[in-house]
């Protein structure tokens, strides 16, 4: 198992990181620097026309590869039945991409995003009113599961059944607005899903890590540089379980 702490972080360049399927390097090639990334056989090179600075390698939300077609992440998991007016917390996994950012003069800019996973997309809802989602199938656990931090993160998901009926839930859809990832030796995110009926639920991404010491990752979604305001939720209007 790779240790995320060994790659996610801040790197003054020139530097070189090579492990398994990944090579990330910024090396001097007078008069500039050359950024090189190799992952799953694909190679990207860019010239950095600036004096020595820093590179950030952080986990990012998995919504831009191979190109951005959606801002929604859908996690499918085995059906969970939640009792009326109860709240349960469980852990699911989510896919992640790896982002490379360049920092200088107080500004951080995305330079590259790559992934060790092959993405899958899906449709949540009918084709006329639904949304395209980045699709991920996950198991569920009551404890923090062990994952490969280069491929998957862990989401602590609080399920709140706000209705007076037993409700089965097997999927959650999140919007990337204010999607915040945290990392230490693993990558984590917190979220909340308030279920109003079998058809309607609201999901929100939290802006706190689920354990102390995790660092906030630089994200891709707009507004990440701003301070956090009230978290915007996504209203799931097309069901929270299969067959609805």
């Amino acid at each position: 198992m790779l240790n995320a702490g060994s790659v996610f972080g801040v790197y003054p360049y020139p530097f070189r990181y090579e492990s398994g399927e990944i090579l990330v390097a910024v090396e001097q090639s007078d008069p500039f620097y050359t950024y090189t990334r190799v992952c799953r056989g694909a190679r990207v090179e860019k010239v950095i026309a600036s004096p020595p600075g820093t590179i950030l390698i952080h986990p990012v939300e998995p919504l831009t590869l191979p190109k951005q077609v959606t801002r929604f992440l859908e996690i499918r998991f085995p059906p969970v039945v939640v009792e009326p007016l109860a709240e349960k917390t469980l852990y699911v996994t989510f896919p992640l991409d790896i982002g490379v950012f360049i920092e200088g003069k107080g500004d951080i800019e995305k330079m590259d995003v790559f992934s060790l996973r092959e993405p899958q997309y899906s449709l949540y809802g009918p084709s006329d009113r639904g949304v395209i989602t980045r699709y991920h199938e996950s198991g569920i656990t009551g404890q923090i599961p062990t994952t490969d931090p280069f491929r998957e993160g862990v989401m602590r998901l609080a399920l709140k059944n706000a209705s007076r009926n037993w409700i089965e839930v097997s999927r959650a859809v999140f919007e990337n607005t204010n999607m915040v990832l945290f990392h230490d030796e693993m990558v984590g995110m917190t979220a909340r899903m308030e279920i109003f009926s079998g058809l309607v639920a609201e999901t929100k991404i939290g802006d706190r890590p689920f354990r102390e010491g995790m660092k906030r990752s630089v994200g891709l979604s707009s507004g990440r540089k701003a301070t956090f305001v009230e978290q915007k939720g996504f209203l799931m209007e097309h069901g929270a379980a299969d067959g609805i």
Partner: protein
Amino acid sequence: MTSFSDPLIGEITIYDLAAIAVIMVITVIVAKLVTNHIKKRLSDKVGKDELAIIVRVTYYGIIILGIFIALPYFRVNLSGLLVAGGVVGIIIGFACQSVVSNLISGLFIIVERPVKLGDNINIGDVFGTVEEIRVLSTTVSATDGTYIRIPNEKVFTSNIINYVTHAARRIEYTIGIDYADDAGRGVAVIHDLLASHPFVLKNPKPQVFVKELSPDAVNISILFWTPSSEYGDVRNEMLWRIKVALEEAGLSFGSPRRMVRFGNELRMESRSPAEGR
């Protein structure tokens, strides 16, 4: 001492002047409120120039309406003005019929939004990408790069096919597998291929099944969904990849065949070269 009802200028009294002032102040306030509302609502729907025209026309329209409301207080004989205005209105109406029709259609298009900037659409016989929606016309960039201006009246009254309004679209192929080959294996190969492509949506699930036993081949129907924005690329790419995958799996495609039956018994003769001499 002058009272409010005493004529001040001609037949106009102080009361009339006050009423005119109040009406015009209210008119200006209403015009500003309405135009501000229009700016907020339409700023992301129409171009800057068109928005400026709409705002100006609305503003002065409301001002003119306010003047008409205030006219009785000017002690003006409206009957003659209305007759003259009516005649002028009819003349202008006939002269500007198509312009007004396009203008009204444009406003309805802006409000109803059957097309948006960047949409791939088909209006009548025009196929392309919407470049601009103006008050009088909509411009489309055809797939061959041609600039096409369509009057809004035609846009509004034509059948519009918008290829990207819905999130996803379905792609459908029919592939014929030779009778000598295993069509079931072909179905499995295509299923695996579809599952490996990111833009072949997981839901609705792709469908691959034997649709027809045609005279020439076992026809396999392939149905899957893709994001509307990726429709063209995915449709072209997957058709080729399916062809390659089936060939790599050792499957061949059906081709037209005809079975010929002879009414009489056929006799075959073979001769050696020496006998033939």
